[in-house]
């Protein structure tokens, strides 16, 4: 019921925040970006704000402002940790919030990722997911040395055959991962002393996935995760990504700039259970303060910060107006990218969330203890279990 059901909120965590100069803010902790403590603190803050989930960005090479390859810049954060491992590191220290790391599905193994996400789901008692990300960069391909990829020179290249193939491969990848999660029935472990059998092997299934890029036999080595199917989210701006979302995702993150964009995009992603609007946010209590803070960061960075998503500056009340307006247009939630951490993360959890609660648009306590539960998604029946 668009317009009346409570909003869902996620935050996208990346380094010291999404603005390239955010790491220079007085309250930033740039020397701790590669520690477990830093990530635990951030996710605990998001959990105090009762958010549905956090996402954690990742890539198969250092960050770069170049379309492909490296930019040799020393004035921005370079280097990051494996996002799935960060999610695992945070899992035991949190209890309710969902953990959705990015995972690059080009060059990597679906078998490994399936058991990794399943393990985060076990360690978090049902709060895991992942966001499949493709890699179109030739520089990433050279890190693996297994396929020749042309260097990206123009954004238009992204619309050619290569990109379609990468999204097709991603869809196959998610399908293999999902089958592996189901390759153990929930009650496969029997510990039957009479026959000496630990499992009922009739309840373990080969997946026999065969595709253009890989085949995977199965079953997984890891028992079915607590959620059955952890949550899959997809960020989408272009047609092949919308198609991937429709085929494979529980949540799609989209980047409208106004309500008419929302209507247009909703037609592209029909059938995906949750459509989250994506915004970069700079939030301050005093009107105008966020815009001047962003301007100051822009000056430090030497360029105006732009994004693939709408960049919002304003107060929590103004942001709440915008979010509720887009909910009217049909979005079920939002993934907010804090411009600077911790400032904008805390503004989300300590100002925006109370503002939305006052308007009756956000939960006042966690109503479920799994991520699927928070998103109102039922625990799915196992595709291999007899009906």
């Amino acid at each position, binding site marked *: 019921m668009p317009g009346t059901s409570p909003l869902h909120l996620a935050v996208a965590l990346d380094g010291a925040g999404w603005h390239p100069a955010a790491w220079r803010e007085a309250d930033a902790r740039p020397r701790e970006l590669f520690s477990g403590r830093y990530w635990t603190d951030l996710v605990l803050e998001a959990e105090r704000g009762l958010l549905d989930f956090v996402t954690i960005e990742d890539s198969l090479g250092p960050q770069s402002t170049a379309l492909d390859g490296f930019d040799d810049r020393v004035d921005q954060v370079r280097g990051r940790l494996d996002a799935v*491992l960060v999610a695992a590191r945070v899992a035991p220290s949190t209890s309710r919030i969902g953990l959705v790391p990015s995972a690059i599905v080009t060059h990597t193994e679906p078998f490994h990722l399936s058991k990794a996400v399943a*393990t985060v789901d076990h360690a978090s008692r049902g709060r895991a997911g992942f966001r499949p990300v493709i890699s179109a960069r030739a520089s990433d391909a050279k890190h693996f040395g297994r396929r020749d990829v042309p260097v990206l020179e123009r954004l238009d290249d992204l619309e050619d055959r290569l990109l379609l193939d990468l999204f097709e491969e991603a869809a196959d990848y998610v399908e293999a991962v999902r089958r592996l999660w189901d390759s*153990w029935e929930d009650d496969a472990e029997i510990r039957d002393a009479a026959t*000496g059998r630990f499992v009922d092997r009739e309840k373990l299934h080969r997946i026999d996935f065969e595709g253009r890029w890989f085949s995977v*036999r199965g079953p997984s080595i890891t028992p079915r995760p607590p959620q059955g199917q952890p949550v899959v989210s997809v960020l989408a701006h272009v047609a092949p990504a919308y198609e991937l979302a429709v085929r494979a995702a529980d949540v799609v993150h989209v980047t409208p700039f106004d309500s008419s964009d929302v209507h247009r995009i909703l037609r592209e992603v029909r059938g995906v259970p949750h459509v989250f609007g994506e915004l970069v946010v700079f939030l301050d209590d005093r009107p105008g303060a966020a815009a001047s803070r962003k301007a100051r960061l822009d000056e430090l960075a030497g360029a105006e910060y732009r994004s693939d998503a709408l960049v919002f500056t304003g107060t929590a009340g103004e942001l709440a107006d915008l979010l509720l307006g887009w909910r009217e247009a049909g979005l079920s939630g939002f993934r907010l990218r804090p411009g600077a951490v911790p400032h904008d993360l805390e503004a989300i959890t300590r100002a925006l969330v109370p503002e939305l609660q006052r308007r009756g648009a956000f939960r006042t306590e966690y109503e479920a203890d799994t991520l699927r539960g928070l998103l109102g998604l039922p625990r799915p029946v196992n595709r291999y279990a007899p009906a």
Partner: protein
Amino acid sequence: MTKPRKQVHLAVHFPGVNNTTVWSDPRSGSHIDFSSFRHLAQTAERAKFDFLFLAEGLRLREYAGQIHDLDVVGRPDTFTVLAALAAVTDRLGLAGTINSTFNEPYEVARQFASLDHLSDGRAAWNVVTSWDAFTGENFRRGGFLPADQRYERAERFMRTAWELFDSWRRDAVVADKESGRFLDDPAAGTFAHQDAHFDIAGRFGVPRSPQGRPVIFQAGDSDGGREFAAATADAIFSRHSELEAGKAFYADVKGRLAKYGRTPDQLLVLPASTFVLGDTDAEAQDIAAEVRRQQVSGPTAIRHLEEVWNRDLTGYDPDGPLPDVDPIAGENTVVKGRASVRQHRDPFAVAKQWRELAEAKGLSIRDLVIHVSGKQTYIGSPETVAEAIDHSVQEDASDGAILVPHITPGGLDEFADRVVPLLQERGVFRTEYEGTTLRSHLGLADLP
């Protein structure tokens, strides 16, 4: 002048998917719930152990074309469970077995560098190489490797990963807010590696981790494996837990170090070891015998025999005599997916020997398998076990032990409570951690 007493190094192996692990015992808990991993890790840390160790198997074992169902089946992903354990421990080393056949160096290096960061310097990598196309069916890159390329690939893989670990200087991240310099080197992470197995170049994405690189373990026992360990490893996961065999192995691998310019303290020998404790030695012996019967059920005994006979023996009574038919010659096709399918080199000789043994001692199939498949390494009262472990170390049969409890997750509790204090009283085991990294626990010098 007496030789200074060597310090004992202790680690614990999370019980595995083989018949060492007794799942039928009422105390046996989950092998997948994180609470089991937390319990074992926190017990090991409470006892000041060096590290926790995880084995790996990337395809469920099969038996005659069907999934082997008599032992524990199923385990978590290694990297993620170790990263989660980093959150519930502070000092314990976290060692994972990661295959060099079904992975690429760039990805494994970023995962280990990440784990080392997330644990503040406690990661270790047991480098193994598989070669079976059976496991390869789960992976896009398949699995077969000719025998002569196995260690070569493992070594090239590991050395490639080292280049990636070394591609960032320790002080490359300056993060100076005032000047706006995050890095002091625009080319941090640059690497280029080319050999017969890997041809990769670019920039590694993870800054140098607290230990520089994970501690390296090696587990192979062949001549090639020993040489690989002598050249590159920090520790060996050895299978020679008995005193005399241990001494020979210890002398052999430590003797290989000099030609690589290394000293004996730079490679620790840690045998996988099982144990059973009792209030008295006699009680421990009784318990050990009972555990052996739990480990070798009737069906398990039959399957163990089939590994030698290489044929279906399901019609035989485990409590009856050994089969009078002969083994089938040729490659064993019955068992698939074991970390080490022990191909019995001469199954006819083994069968003959076992029949003679069974006749001489009046053993049933199950008795025979219990008899020949190895008893626990350390059996006795806490005093006896502490003395035996210390003896193994002082006699240069080992540098300690990687203990394999037979119960999950409480199988180490009694050892922690009763044996560790005795080793501490003997002055051969730490009472507090001195450093924070696994390298420090193992007495290995810091890397630059």
